[in-house]
């Protein structure tokens, strides 16, 4: 089930295994049957670490989401809470515990594990609420990163950008530094750290400091990671606003991928559910599909521009039917046996192809719509720096038509980023339009966007120079057989990607784009961490083997 984690350059199974082990240790500390109460934000990511069957083996009989009010009726001996260290959650937990205790004859033991670590504030809150003493265990489950795929770990901290930019609360950066220490403990000290931005600098400083704190007690492992690149989101505020155009990106834009799972309307998938039994064909429940590189076809098409996906799918379809045809060629018993042995593989490939063809159809319905095309057209104008300094008629129309606010704000912030801010008049016009159309409560939304730097009054015009200097716009990129990263946005490459590419240039690094680097806000980081002589790799370290 998790084989895809070990297929990359770094074996993430190690990380997952250590997370699993720690989870089970936590569970085993609560002797007897258990009900787990989950902080909603954790259930999804936890699925990436341990499956229900495993939890069952460790006496977990029930699982519930953390909700206000009464705990559901159970006969378990232990109630175990897993939650992030949030004060609001403490109130829910306290309510649960107090109501359960008030019930007659309750002999349950309570435990709480904070992910990734408990905080003083939460403990104080529990004390304030008068339940601190009720818990048999109050401890950490230091799960900092969730392995998504062979090349992707996520910390699942959706509020990080908000906390850092709106409230100057850098707790998430501290967690990030801690996580990087975990990475270094598992995969060796990373020799080179590069980065850009205030927050990246903060994280880098903390990592260096934590290593110092470790003193001589560091685990001695030959470094498996050559280089670490830390980038602030503020380095590139434009890209995440643009509509993603890769296959995976579009699935996410349209249906939303959460913890590698997408939920889709079931109609298109009738054929495969028929295979499982006729009854479910009528189900209206959303169909869940797991998307990760463990699936061969998906690994091939996930990062392709959507316009190139159709080709691959039709090629695959031909290949599979050709494989089926082989059965006619199989004459001898041996040949037939060989064919039969390939059948499960062909079946799986066929099912996978069926699924993705259906998904692609669903996606295409959207991408063919005139709204999608119009929006994309406007986005590309902005990326190219066309008509960014005036009120844009398309955006204006969108507001008038009361298109979804998120769509409007994305376009607006994109225009703002490409123009390095609006003239005061333009800004005020947009603001008033939004307040009048979507309601006055969005005065707060707009204020937050301003604080985050997503909306601002015009500053130095750096975007054109950045666009040229980092070659963000590539006119003639092929979507089918791309030679440049800009294919992902059909002709636009994100700043972050370009920074990584320039850094990886052997012998040059960022020196060749020094002027452009100065246009990006925040300090530049270039640090070499000392590696004990015995652990250095024999071969010369170059950045192109990243």
């Amino acid at each position, binding site marked *: 089930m998790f084989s895809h984690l070990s297929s990359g350059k770094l074996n993430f199974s190690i990380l997952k295994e250590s997370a699993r082990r720690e989870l089970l240790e936590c569970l085993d500390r609560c002797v007897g049957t258990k009900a787990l109460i989950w902080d909603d934000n954790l259930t999804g990511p936890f699925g990436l670490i341990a499956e229900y069957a495993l939890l069952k083996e460790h006496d977990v009989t029930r699982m519930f989401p953390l909700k206000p009010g009464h705990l559901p009726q159970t006969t378990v001996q232990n109630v175990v809470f897993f939650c992030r260290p949030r*004060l*609001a959650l403490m109130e829910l937990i306290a309510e649960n515990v107090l109501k359960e205790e008030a019930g007659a004859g309750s002999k349950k033991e309570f435990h709480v594990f904070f992910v990734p*670590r408990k*905080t*003083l*504030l939460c403990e*104080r809150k529990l004390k304030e609420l008068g339940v601190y003493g009720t818990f048999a265990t109050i401890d950490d489950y230091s799960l900092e990163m969730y392995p998504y795929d062979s090349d992707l770990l996520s910390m699942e901290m959706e509020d990080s950008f908000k*906390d850092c930019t709106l*409230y*100057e*609360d*850098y*707790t998430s*950066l*501290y967690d990030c*530094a801690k996580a990087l220490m975990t990475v270094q403990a598992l995969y060796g000290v990373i020799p080179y750290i590069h980065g850009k931005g205030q927050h990246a600098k*903060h994280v880098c*400083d*903390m990592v260096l*400091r934590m290593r*110092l*704190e*470790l*003193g*001589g*007690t560091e685990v001695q492992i030959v470094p498996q990671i050559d280089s670490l690149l830390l980038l602030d989101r503020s380095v590139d505020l434009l890209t995440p606003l643009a509509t993603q155009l890769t296959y995976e990106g579009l699935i996410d834009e349209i249906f939303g991928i959460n913890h590698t799972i997408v939920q889709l309307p079931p109609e298109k998938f009738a054929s495969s559910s028929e295979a499982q039994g006729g009854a479910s064909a009528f189900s209206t429940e959303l169909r869940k599909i797991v998307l990760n590189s463990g699936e061969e076809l998906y690994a091939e098409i996930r990062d392709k521009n959507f316009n190139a996906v159709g080709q691959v799918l039709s090629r695959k379809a031909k290949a599979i039917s050709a494989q089926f045809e082989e059965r006619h060629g199989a004459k001898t018993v041996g040949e037939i046996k060989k064919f039969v042995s390939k059948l499960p593989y062909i079946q799986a490939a066929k099912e996978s192809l069926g699924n993705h063809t259906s998904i692609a159809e669903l996606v295409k319905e959207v991408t063919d719509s*005139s709204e999608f095309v119009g929006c994309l057209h406007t986005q590309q104008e902005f990326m190219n720096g066309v008509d960014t300094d005036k009120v844009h008629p398309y955006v*204006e*129309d969108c*507001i*008038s*038509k*009361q298109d979804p606010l998120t769509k409007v704000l994305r376009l607006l912030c994109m225009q703002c980023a490409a123009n390095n801010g609006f003239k005061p008049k333009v800004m*005020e016009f947009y*603001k*008033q*339009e939004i*307040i*009048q*159309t*979507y*309601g*006055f*409560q969005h*005065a*707060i939304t707009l*204020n937050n966007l301003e604080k985050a730097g997503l909306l601002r009054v015009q500053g130095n015009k750096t975007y054109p120079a950045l666009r040229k200097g980092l070659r963000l716009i590539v006119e003639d990129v092929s979507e089918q057989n791309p030679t440049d990263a800009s294919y992902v946005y059909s002709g636009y490459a994100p700043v972050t990607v370009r920074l990584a590419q320039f850094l990886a240039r052997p012998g040059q690094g960022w020196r060749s784009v020094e002027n452009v680097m100065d246009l990006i806000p925040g300090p530049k980081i270039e640090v070499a961490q000392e590696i004990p002589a015995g652990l250095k790799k024999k071969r010369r370290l170059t950045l192109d083997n990243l």
Partner: protein
Amino acid sequence: MMSIIGSWSPLGLGKNVFYSKSDLYSMHWADLVDLSKVNIAAASYGGPIAIRRDDSKITKIQGSTKKVIFIFSAAGQKISQFVWNSGCVIEFSWSSTEDLLCVQDDGQVLVYDIFGTFKRVFSMGQEAKDTGIIECRFFTTSLGTGLAVLTKSYRIFVVNSVENPTIRRLAEIPGLNAPPSSWTVFNLERQTRAIVAKNADIFLLNQGGQCQDQYPAFTQAGQFITEMAVSVNNKHLALFTSSGTLWIGSSDMQTCDCEFDTKCLQRPQQLMWCGTEAVVAYWDKLLLVIGSHKEFIHYAYHEPVYLVPEVDGIRILGQTLHELLQKVPESVMDVYRIGSMAVGAILMEAAREFENGSYKADEYIRMIKDSLEEAVKQCIEAAGNIYDNTATKENQKALLRAASFGKCFAVDMNADLFVNACQLIRVLNAIRDTPVGIPLTHTQLQSLTLRVLIDRLILRRHYPLAIRICEYLKIPDCEGASRILAHWACYKVQQVNIPEEQLATAITEKLGNTAGVSYAEIANKASDCGRTQLAIRLLDHEPRASEQVPLLMKINRDDVALTKAIESGDTDLVYTVILRLKQTLKTGEFLMSITRIPVAYSLYLQLCRQQNRELLMDMFYQTDNFHEEAHCYIYNSYQQKSIDKRLADLQGAHDSFSKAKNDFMAKQVEDEMRLIRWQCEQERKSEKPYLDLSLQDTMTVLLKAGLNKQAEELRKDFKVPDKRFWWIKIMALADTGNWQELDKFSKSKKSPIGYEPFAEVCLKHQNVSEARNKYIPRISSENKVKFLVKLGLLEDAAEVAFQQKRDEELQYVLAHCSPLKPNLVAKINSLRSQLTAKK
């Protein structure tokens, strides 16, 4: 070579078992100590020796009536002395951590370190205190050193570890009404047992409260047991009887190895095991080594001596001498025994001949060429085991030279063994050296472990030697050098006669940034000694904020603590200090100090945001942050239930925006208030809900209800741009299916947004004919084809495209043609060819 064998004595004939005596030190304590008049406690593993005047041997120490306890190193060098002014000591001994345990007759046990500094005291219980103690025994357990006391009521109480004394009473011995004739305590398989002899009866007591009679096999029954000894490994037992018989057997008394007649009825002054194969009994100046087959060796001394048991032998302390008596280790015997044909002995011979330049070297090597590795190993082992106390270390050198010589011929041999042995021998020689005075054998070091040895060097404040050993053996810094330096620094901060400034410099210079040194620990020590400034200076060097911050708070340096917490980036730590500041400071002072530090301020705001929004607003007010204050008002206005309160909050927001000189937002708030009032008014009139709708939604509702006048009123009042108003109206009319009105509206005046929106809403509501007839003609030519295609009017689209002579639009139409309509496809293709033909 002769000098080695010269000290060997055979135990039994023809058995190849020898006992040897090696000189360890010549003692220089003669002028301070008269061994015949003192009590001695010497720690095993070459540990310190404590000496106190023996009250029973009445003599006067010149000029002084105070009792003094002296502590010497094993080499006889004085480490410390201290005046004893507590109660009556009945016994004293060293614990496994080299603490001096002084047991008083009231059951109090006073603990001192080797520098005579009092550490702590513990009691052996109420009964021991009430009745008093007659005797006590020390024993070794897995937890450290244990202690057993015999009270005057003839009960035995034990603790298994003096570090963590939990008192247990052993079972009572039936009918015991006088002190036992002899007793001992030992710990075997985690069980503490006592063997008690009541004249001829022997009892085994265990922790479980059981008392068993024992009947060890004696050839002559009824002898009183007057002395007994258990071996260091607790497996063997020796019993001495009133008739002079020595019984040797297992400690469970099930097997008897032999009974030896010493021909001496007087019980020995000391009886103990030498290793595991022989028992040593000492009478006045006479030492007898007795093997388990009745063999014996007899040594005579010119002076009284005192015996100290070790794992592999015994040490003999005298007024001037200090010797080690042990069974000659096998490797040493193999190499040195006269006429030995062991491969190691031959290798030695070969090496010697080689040094003499003799060809015989080759012959000897040939003799052992098949077992060279073994020969080398024998020499290496012998070099480690031999106790070479001569200044030149000639025996060790000769053995290692031979090993090194032999190694040249054993090509494949791993050199680690040799290198490790050389290193270890060097360490052993260094610690045996008189100034240090820890005479460990190789076997003893293995049993003690290197880590404990380092601890003991630290305990004796031999810091430089300890560090050099760690560096030499490449022990990781965190277990070695760093740990030692930290101990050194902790010792240093206690030297109150040195100025703090000087100490801080000395410590930081020496420790620098050594990884793994806990400056916090040292600072804590300094703070315990009342040296706050020193503690602060030292804490500056502590890299771990989690250690630094709590200590800084402990010494009331909250300001520094806050700075350090912020530097660490650990927000939880910052909160720790903030909450403490909030507790200790007055509100005003707290606000002052927190607003000065942005990071702390932001975090405090974040806490307020989650816990207490009123406080949050107050903070903004205090700091003149009108912009944020205004937004707080807006936020609050949405929490209010009554309109008046809501409007009051908005008024607040308005005022704050004005103070912040944000006229635009002030105006927006004003508009909102006006809108709310208007909506209230409208609700009262129409009894339909309007509140909480945006301006746009309000107008949409009005237009849908046909209240055009009111919508118009709002449009003017709020200066809604024409374009948007047209959109609102078009959508409202289409949504209500009011096509007629829509048509009228489209003709009312020229649309500021063109006529595409009209077509679009028709399309949305699938009113194709309305779009085709009324609006398509009016939309701009470049959009016409697209709209016709959208409406599914492909033929019309093709016509228009053809009229406009646009081939790309014809292609566009073609792309939307279903192949099921071959006629249409054919038509478009013909139009295309006509178009190209014209060109």
